[in-house]
């Protein structure tokens, strides 16, 4: 195990085990809870891939369905068992990953053993598959009521032709109803190999003891087949329609979203972490609280608490979102488009760029206060292969000119917008 210094009194212990599972353990003295996450490099985007020299296309929502299914497999009920031991278990699926999580105060050794056992050889019963179909149908219907989700769906559909990107993580009800245990088994065999997974533990724990337990566990000792990586297939075709607007009956406000698409080529030229840092720095420079643009919009009352500027950076695609609900549609649109294009045309605000470094340092220290925030950050580092020991220095070492290739993406051909407006009475 390798000991890495993340802060002057914070250390992370990492090792890749015999099975291929990457493990990171972060002891947090005096914290009551322990958080554990098992992450699978398989998410909602993965609907088309090459495996064993064959191209496979699967229905949307399989990753999310598998996530639900693991709670009840091999006649075991995860939530029930964890609850019996005073712990709780949860999971989520994003576009890039599926993550299974539990937290406990006591019984870590037993719970970790039980947890890992779950992922060796699943057996999903027909009854539990049918039950999950009914539950997921409810879940998907709930999102139908959200005008914001509808708007973001529309925006993604304008930017991308790839079904894996623009579809919901949960898939469509139609696709979900077609799923069966054979398909779930096939997908499990491709993606749920320890070489494609990572385990992160944060809490008042002994790394030596835990590493020994995990190494000796049947999950690590299991005779896993030789790992064959699936090659994910993403299509990124040029789009012609960049703007869309419609009036929504009963809407009391105008909802406006702009997106700046990060082309697929950028993900080939740069690693995801650099894109993440560069985009975050540019957004802060252009639209953060200390930016001149923020002040201008605030003074002109073009924005309010609904305003947000953030990014979605997934494994193979990404975009920047700028969102607002405003009364001033025309004026806001004109100014925000100009501001977006100016990012590409003009130099960044150097004074703010330098001040942001202090803020980044402060935020990095602050993350260690919250068990869940530092745990999530560490999960991301392990999953992405980021070296936490050098992470902060790398971020602080970035020079303003290093951001030029990302800054150059802020051009008309990458900008898309969707406006849902109040219907004229």
């Amino acid at each position, binding site marked *: 195990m390798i000991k890495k210094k993340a802060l002057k009194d914070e250390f992370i212990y990492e090792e890749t085990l015999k099975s291929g599972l990457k493990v990171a353990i972060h002891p947090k003295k005096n914290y009551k809870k322990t958080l554990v996450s098992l992450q699978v490099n398989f998410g909602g985007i993965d609907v088309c891939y090459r495996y064993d020299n064959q191209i496979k296309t699967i229905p949307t929502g399989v990753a999310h369905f598998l996530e639900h299914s693991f709670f009840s497999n091999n006649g075991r009920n995860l939530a029930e068992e964890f609850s019996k031991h005073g712990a*709780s278990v949860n999971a989520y699926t994003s576009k890039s990953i599926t993550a299974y999580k539990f937290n406990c105060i006591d019984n870590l050794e037993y719970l970790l053993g039980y947890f890992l056992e779950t992922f060796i050889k699943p057996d999903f019963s027909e009854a539990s598959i049918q039950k999950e179909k009914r539950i997921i149908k*409810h879940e998907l*219907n709930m999102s139908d*009521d959200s005008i914001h989700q509808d708007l973001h769906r529309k925006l993604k559909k304008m930017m991308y032709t790839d079904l894996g990107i623009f579809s919901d993580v949960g898939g469509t009800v139609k696709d979900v109803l077609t799923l069966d245990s054979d398909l779930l088994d096939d997908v499990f065999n491709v993606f749920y190999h320890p070489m494609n997974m990572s385990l992160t533990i944060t809490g008042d724990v002994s790394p030596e003891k835990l590493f020994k337990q995990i190494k000796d566990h049947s999950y690590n000792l299991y005779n896993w087949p030789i790992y064959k990586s699936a090659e994910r297939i993403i299509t990124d075709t040029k789009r012609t329609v960049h703007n869309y607007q419609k009036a929504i009956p009963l809407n*009391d*406000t105008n909802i406006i979203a702009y997106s700046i698409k990060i082309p697929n080529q950028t993900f080939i030229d740069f690693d995801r972490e650099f894109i993440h840092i560069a985009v975050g720095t540019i957004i802060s420079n252009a639209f953060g609280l*200390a930016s001149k643009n923020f002040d201008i919009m605030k003074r002109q009352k073009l924005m309010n608490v609904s305003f947000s500027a953030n990014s979605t950076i997934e494994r193979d695609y990404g975009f920047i979102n700028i969102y607002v609900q405003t009364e001033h549609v025309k004026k806001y649109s004109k100014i925000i488009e100009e501001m977006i294009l100016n990012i590409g045309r003009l130099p960044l605000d150097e004074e703010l760029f330098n*001040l942001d470094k202090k803020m*980044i340092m402060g935020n990095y*220290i602050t993350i260690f206060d919250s068990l869940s925030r530092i745990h999530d950050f560490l999960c991301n580092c392990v999953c992405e292969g980021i070296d936490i020991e050098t992470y902060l220095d790398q971020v602080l070492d970035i020079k303003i000119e290093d951001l030029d290739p990302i800054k150059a993406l802020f051009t008309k051909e990458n900008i898309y917008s969707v406006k849902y407006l109040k219907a004229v009475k």
Partner: protein
Amino acid sequence: MENPIKKTINGIDVYYIISDKFKTITWSLVFTHPQGLEKINEYYFLSNALVDNMKKYPSNVIKYRYLSSLYGLDAFGSATSIGANIVNHFVITYPNEIYLAEETELSKKAFIFLNEMVTNPKLRNGMLTKKVLKDNLDEAKELHKILKSIKDMYSYYRFSKVFYQDKPNLQYNFPENDLLDNVTQTSLMDTYKSLFSNDAVSIFVTGNFSEAKFDEIIKNNLNPMIKNHLVKKLKKQYPYNKNNEVKVIKEYDEVSQSRVFIAYLTNVEYFSELHPAMAVFNSVFGGFDQSKLFMEIREKSNLAYYVDSTYIPDENIVVCSLSCEVKNETLVVEKIKSILEEIQKGDFTDELFRQAKDSCVSSLNWISDSQSQYLLQHIKAFHTTDKKYDLEDRINQYKSVTREAVIKVANTLVLDTIYMYTKAGGSND
């Protein structure tokens, strides 16, 4: 974490919660007002106006660049209710300078900033400006429109309106939309002045710091305008009547799923002897993923994606919330009522009871892992009971809750409101 050290500096009650567990320092300057609801919007606006309207940092660019130079110091104001008093908190959090090689004066600069925020706003002719008032009013109105576009939040907002409509002087919505136009430049300024002439003031500090150093920082930098006054701590008086007439309200919108809220009143009081039993009851009822509501309604009957219950101890209420198909809403309400009746009769397993207690203890433990939560519990405890918040003692109280106590508190529940945010013509009524 250690319990707070209480002392008086420059006439102000100061509470230090010193611990080496966390990497940040948080200061909370707390103003407790003698008035109740009548100035609700003014207090809410003040919490924003003072943060956004500093004389020394007249624009966002100047202010937030300064805060970036303080390593991203986070500053905010909030207005909330503790008991029947309204309380304004002005809070700053920043990384502890022990992790910053070149910085030794950060805490001093941070405390000076906190003082500036509260005591030195931009004024014109001795008043908070018209622009400040207009900006706050406009923002509050826009906030309401934004809320309306988020159906889950809006349905809860509407439910709370219905629940409180027959409970005058108890509703705490910040801001109170119906009273917005009553706020004037004069009423806002009078409320601001009353912070310094009428309010009880206290300072809470958490983090890993030297007591002597922080004593000096406060002594030398606390603005003399900030003075402590005696304020009567008011308890909320909830109407509680076993023969309560139940309000059943449906409101309609274009929705594919119905949002249902069911509110029950209890006479079990905040921090009372039965408070832990009520929390355990809530876990048995709908408070975690093995609760009766979750198992019966979601897992067995698949009638809802989410269904839960929440105990709000300082409001004396338990609220069930769920989302279900419109055609099932009446069926689900009846199921919830019958599940409550089962608990009232003691029809729940020992295993569920044990797990529910564990779930509550686990949530309590979570408090000590969060600096902000721990701080808030201390502020509430001092306000409500004048005692230190003793986490270990509370955990022991929860551990010793009996089945009988859970049944007893379950039988205090009185159905008050059934609210459905639903689609017209979709129900099987």
